[in-house]
């Protein structure tokens, strides 16, 4: 896991009436960027940057922390905020380390996490449940057997369990998902020299394209420019994913999946695949909600649908499916399915049914 320096200014985390905090945070990022260009804001008042290069350059992690404190002293004083700095392996541990103002040496992350309160996971239901069971610390939660956690708390709880054990770098669903990809890219500098193509050499066209792509990367950011990379899946629809240009191995880069559905759905695939599927409702003429029951059939025939974020309701002219997806036995809402829909404008859409409701997965543009 990546070793990160995390900064936290509690006074800048809430936006005041005059919006001063946002501007101050921008200035803070600019100051830190003068020392290390790869600062990533996590949320208001919180930022991280990789620890490896600065600590080598400035002579150790304590030196980096002291330097950051010195750089930001006058800004924090002017804003009337405290500054907390911490270093640890992995984003979750780094943020906890900042809260405690400690540098957690590599290899002691698990021990560090054990003493943290269960509320650090920011899951109120899980925390309440654990406290009722007498588990107040992450260490106690981590000691539970993994399969029992899976059974009792579901996949989200299982993920928190792995984070508590130090096996996963960060929680899900709390931060902007692209942050992990951006962090992964901080460790992969764009290639300094031109990489060879399949035929063992580069042509002038290859170099020209690569140079243009690198210019866009420098202008916008490394994660913005992507190329297709072969993915390893027995699923025909998962055979290509997009990864940032220059990532050296698919295992290291957080590859964005371009096909969230399994190969059982026949071609053609949707040309637009929604990264964060919005919820949607499928209804029949009487306004009843259409669901997929455990036998894999629709409860009613859908005649219209609405997608969250759009005020319009659309009519369903034709539909096909639902196709069941391989289910995970431990999930409370066990059924997952896919449905193709054609609306009255002859647009083709792909919906997925998961967690008891519909989501828009793709558009056949």
């Amino acid at each position, binding site marked *: 896991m990546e070793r990160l320096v995390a900064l936290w200014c509690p006074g800048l985390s809430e936006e005041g009436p005059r919006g001063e905090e946002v501007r101050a945070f921008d200035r803070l990022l600019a100051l830190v960027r003068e020392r290390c260009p790869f600062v990533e804001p996590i949320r208001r008042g919180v930022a991280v940057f990789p620890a490896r290069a600065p600590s080598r350059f400035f002579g150790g992690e304590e030196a980096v922390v002291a330097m950051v404190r010195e750089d930001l002293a006058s800004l924090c004083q002017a804003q009337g905020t405290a500054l907390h700095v911490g270093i640890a392996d992995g984003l979750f541990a780094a943020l906890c380390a900042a809260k405690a103002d400690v540098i957690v040496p590599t290899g002691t992350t698990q021990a560090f996490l054990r003493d943290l309160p269960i509320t650090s996971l920011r899951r109120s239901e899980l925390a309440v449940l654990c406290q009722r069971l007498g588990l107040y610390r992450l260490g106690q939660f981590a000691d539970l057997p993994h399969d029992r956690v899976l059974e009792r708390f579901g996949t989200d709880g299982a993920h928190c369990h792995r984070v508590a054990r130090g096996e996963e770098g960060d929680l899900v669903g709390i931060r902007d998902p692209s942050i992990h990809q951006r962090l992964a890219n901080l460790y992969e500098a764009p*290639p300094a020299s031109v*990489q*060879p*193509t*399949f035929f*063992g050499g580069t*042509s002038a*066209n*290859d170099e*020209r*394209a*690569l*140079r*243009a792509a690198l*210019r*866009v990367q420098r*202008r*916008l950011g490394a994660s*913005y*420019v*992507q*190329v*297709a990379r*072969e993915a390893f899946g027995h699923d*025909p629809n*998962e055979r*290509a*994913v*997009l990864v940032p240009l*220059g990532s*050296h*191995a698919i295992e290291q880069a957080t590859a964005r999946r*371009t*096909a969230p559905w399994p190969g059982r759905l*026949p*071609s*053609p*695939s*949707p*040309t*637009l*695949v*929604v*990264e964060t599927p919005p919820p949607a409702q499928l209804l029949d003429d009487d306004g009843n909600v259409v669901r997929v029951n455990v036998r894999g059939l*629709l409860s009613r*025939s859908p005649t219209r649908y609405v997608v969250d974020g759009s005020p319009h309701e659309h009519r369903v002219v*034709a*539909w*096909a*499916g639902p196709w069941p997806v391989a289910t995970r036995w431990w999930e409370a809402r066990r059924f997952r399915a896919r449905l*193709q829909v*054609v*609306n009255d404008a*002859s*647009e*083709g*859409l792909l919906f997925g049914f998961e967690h008891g409701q519909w989501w828009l997965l793709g*558009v*056949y*543009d």
Partner: protein
Amino acid sequence: MFAFSTPSRPLGARPPLPEQLKERAKPVFSASSRTIDVDPALQTLLPRGAFQRGTTTVLIGPEGSGATSLGISLMAHASSIGHWCGVVGAQDPGVAAMKELGLDVRRVIFVPHPRAGWADAAAELLDGVDVLLLCPPRNVPFGAARRLMARAKERRSVLLVRTTTPTQWPIVPEVTMSLTTSSWQGVGHGDGYLTARRVLVTVHGRRDASQPTERWLWLPSRHGAASMAE
């Protein structure tokens, strides 16, 4: 094998290709030609049967009408014969779908979420690729459109712009394709699955004084790639 893939052995350990294979493996287009070819199945869509280098073609259709599929289909043949291509602003591109339409993704550079930098990204890539598909996020300012069309002309690349309304691109391009009327085949009321879509494309050429032409297209066809539907 994909472009920019890490060699599994150190460079220099790769055995040299036999000379005859090296010759055959070179791109099969000439950089000095004036046109960039499209798939023979789609040639009747374009005035003069191919893209003229340096020109801009605007593809107009609401989201879900197939305009993105059309753009990819027009680019597919070029990518397969060695032209580098770019796709800017197609949020969440379905790479599997693009491969089914015939795109050779080994030579495609994607910038799916350029945000405010979409015009800059497009301008830079026009330097490096021969065909660029741009999906601008909203109405394009006059200056940006003019700059991009001029860049395409200067670099002799082909610019394809996918818009959702006729006014989104403010300058009349060399070719305009509007997608109207489409019908999907294969779905009923719970049965079947989406197999093919029939789309009506209306093509205007700026230079031609003649009437716009209408063409029916399978997009995609039952076999995956696009083809004429007459």
